[in-house]
């Protein structure tokens, strides 16, 4: 069978011709959505993984959707002369998002084996000469950069692990808590830098049609300001000072000099290949929207292509990398998209959209600002991914459509990312920070984290609201 890719058409459900949905059905599905969000918020208490929680709700929603007759009977893809019938849950999933996440994860997993990230981190540690304030600044900036190019969790794991080892080596374990909290918060700042830095960015950016370069240019000034504000606040609140005597400086420098940045590099060739591939990936993602052929295939194709090429280095053991993929995250996304699709058919998103409309009707300033703060508060207690997925869908369906330049998209992006800084469960990376803190035998409760992080989170939100309203 010859496939003419240019003629592929996905006939998704036509919402305007769907059957009548009673308010009772909308309420029923609305309750299901709230229940799912509540279960995700209590994920740790339930001892259940995200993918299982959303998977169960996806199954229940699909079944109830069929029983109540709100779902379209079929989705059809036509490829040239051929017609393919797809179950309703297949086109419900945003495969572009899945491809970006899967490709980027595989790529990062493979390149991290080259030792490139640990090499950069140790080089910076040595460059600091063991001075606590320099370390805070270097690690802070590195956290932001790693969060921008990797995922936030991986960035926090790398920097958190190194911070633990290096502060112990320097005999400054008393500053560990302050460092780890600061780094946890900075992952969410760094997560704002590019379109692929965090999942809310991918979902909202994709839905809004914001290009990689535009996203970076608009987010970068805020990230720079917020990073330095965070570091200044951390220095003040956690009492991180420079070393003041020549003897102390000499001793600290000698201690960090014993780190060997080449230890984690299995092969110089692979190391260089990874560094070059990383630069090429960023370049390719930045230019996806203008590259002939590639622009039609999208960023998911770019991420998957780079992952596949990097896997050549481990061609006999690729299964190890497949096994290491975060299938929980991928399963979570897939089932979440299905749930949201059903909610769309049940007109739950319409109802939420009306409430959101009331919020946005407060005006360009108050409405957008309120959307940002509300998104932040919501994502501080539950996962920011369903939140951004639901809001992106609602804003995307808005009539008249919001252009890609509208600040409302950014209100969701900033709110969803920064809300994670209010509580330790607000984002996966702050949860990692808590795990590293507890592994270091430092006692820090939920309330303790909130108390320590609140000044930072408030500064971030004030800066974000001002930035979105004044600059964007």
């Amino acid at each position, binding site marked *: 069978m010859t496939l003419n890719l240019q003629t592929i058409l996905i006939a998704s459900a036509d919402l305007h011709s769907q059957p009548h949905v009673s308010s009772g059905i909308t309420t029923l599905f609305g309750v299901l959505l709230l229940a799912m969000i509540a279960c995700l918020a209590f994920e740790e208490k339930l001892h259940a993984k995200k993918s299982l929680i959303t998977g169960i709700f996806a199954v229940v929603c699909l079944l109830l959707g069929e029983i109540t007759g709100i779902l379209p009977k079929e989705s059809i893809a036509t490829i040239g002369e051929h017609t393919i019938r797809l179950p309703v849950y297949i086109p419900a999933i945003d495969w572009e998002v899945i491809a970006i996440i899967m490709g980027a994860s595989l790529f990062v997993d493979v390149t991290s084996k080259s030792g490139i990230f640990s090499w950069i981190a140790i080089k910076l540690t040595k460059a600091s000469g063991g001075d606590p304030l320099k370390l805070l600044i270097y690690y802070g900036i590195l956290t932001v950069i790693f969060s921008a190019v990797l995922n936030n969790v991986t960035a926090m794991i790398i920097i958190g*692990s190194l911070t633990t080892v290096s502060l112990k080596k320097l005999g400054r374990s008393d500053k560990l808590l302050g460092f780890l909290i600061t780094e946890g918060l900075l992952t969410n700042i760094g997560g704002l830098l590019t379109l692929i830095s965090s999942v809310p960015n991918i979902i909202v950016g994709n839905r809004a049609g914001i290009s990689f370069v535009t996203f970076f240019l608009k987010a970068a000034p805020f990230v720079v300001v917020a990073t330095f504000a965070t570091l200044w606040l951390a220095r003040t609140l956690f009492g991180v000072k420079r070393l003041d005597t020549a003897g102390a400086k000499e001793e600290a420098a000698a201690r960090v000099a014993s780190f060997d940045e080449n230890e984690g590099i299995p092969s110089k060739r692979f190391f260089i290949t990874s560094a070059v591939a990383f630069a090429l990936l960023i370049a390719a993602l930045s230019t996806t929207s203008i590259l002939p052929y590639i622009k039609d295939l999208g960023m998911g194709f770019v991420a998957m292509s780079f992952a596949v090429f990097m896997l050549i280095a481990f061609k006999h053991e690729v299964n190890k990398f497949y096994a290491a993929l975060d299938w929980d995250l991928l399963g979570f996304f897939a089932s979440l998209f299905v749930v949201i699709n059903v909610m769309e058919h049940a007109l739950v998103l319409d109802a939420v959209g009306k409430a959101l409309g009331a919020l946005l009707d407060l005006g360009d300033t108050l409405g957008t600002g309120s959307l940002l703060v509300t998104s932040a508060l919501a994502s501080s207690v539950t996962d920011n991914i369903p939140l951004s997925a639901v809001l992106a869908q609602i804003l995307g369906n808005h009539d008249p459509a919001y252009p890609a330049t509208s600040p409302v998209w950014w209100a969701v992006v900033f709110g969803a990312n920064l809300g994670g800084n209010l509580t330790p469960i607000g984002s996966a990376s702050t949860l990692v920070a808590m795990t590293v803190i507890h592994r270091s035998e430092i006692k820090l409760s939920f309330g303790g984290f909130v108390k320590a992080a609140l000044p930072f989170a408030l500064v971030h939100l004030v800066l974000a609201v001002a930035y979105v309203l004044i600059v964007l």
Partner: protein
Amino acid sequence: MSDRIDQFASVFKAAEKARYQYDPPLLSRVAVLVDTLKEQSSAYAESVCEFLKASNIVADEFKVVGAEDFSNIRQMLDVVHAASPNLIVTHRHLHLDREELEHSLGTYLDTLLQGTPIPVLVTPSPNTDGTPKPLEIARDVLVMTDHLLDDPKCINYGVRFVAPGGIVHLCHVEDDAIFRKYMALIERIPEIETDVAREKLRAKLLQLPTDYIASCIDALQSESINATIKANVRLGHRVTDYHNLIEEHAGDLLVCNTNDPENLAIHPMAYAIALEFRKQPLLLL
């Protein structure tokens, strides 16, 4: 998540390497302890003096403590305390019948090793007529340890005692029996892949001292020390392997640590070496 945190924590812990810094020991006061009268021990003292001089060790104070100065352990400790030397030179079986005590160092030497923090250079016992056995110039010094990374002191002394242009053999033997014992346990844990664990554990056990020796070579080169450093890192049976190493390199001086932080007794490995190797001078720290 925990396994990924472990993964990176391991990378950074592995990158944190102990680095050697040369700190030459002070050897300005040397006390030679013998169980004969001083006038009968002049040949022994002279041979010791020559041995030290060949390694550029010239003490400001060189004191001979003879049988007239002590006749029991308390007196010996008092004399040593009063002299407060940086180095004691003596031999096994002070005040004892040497022929009957092949399996002991003698109570005087035992006490010196454990009762004072002063390094003791143990020479082969003199002949029954008091004439010393010849001491070779320390051209090949073997520093023997099972924890090289924690023993910069052993290396400092080994380097200080080697004759100009000589070779310091830094030897580190990991106990194969302990390795096998842990591997036998790992074989019973289904979650751990045995072959991978064996390979990684073995490699890491040997890599740590190897890296440390590399840092020794760098540090000593930067200090322009006129000696060659050679690494001997292996997994095996300590006494057997040290025996082989000594024979292989014709060691002129053996250096090892006697302090066992776990208990009052002499470190078992050092004790075994001190009993086993009686023909070479031993520097026991």
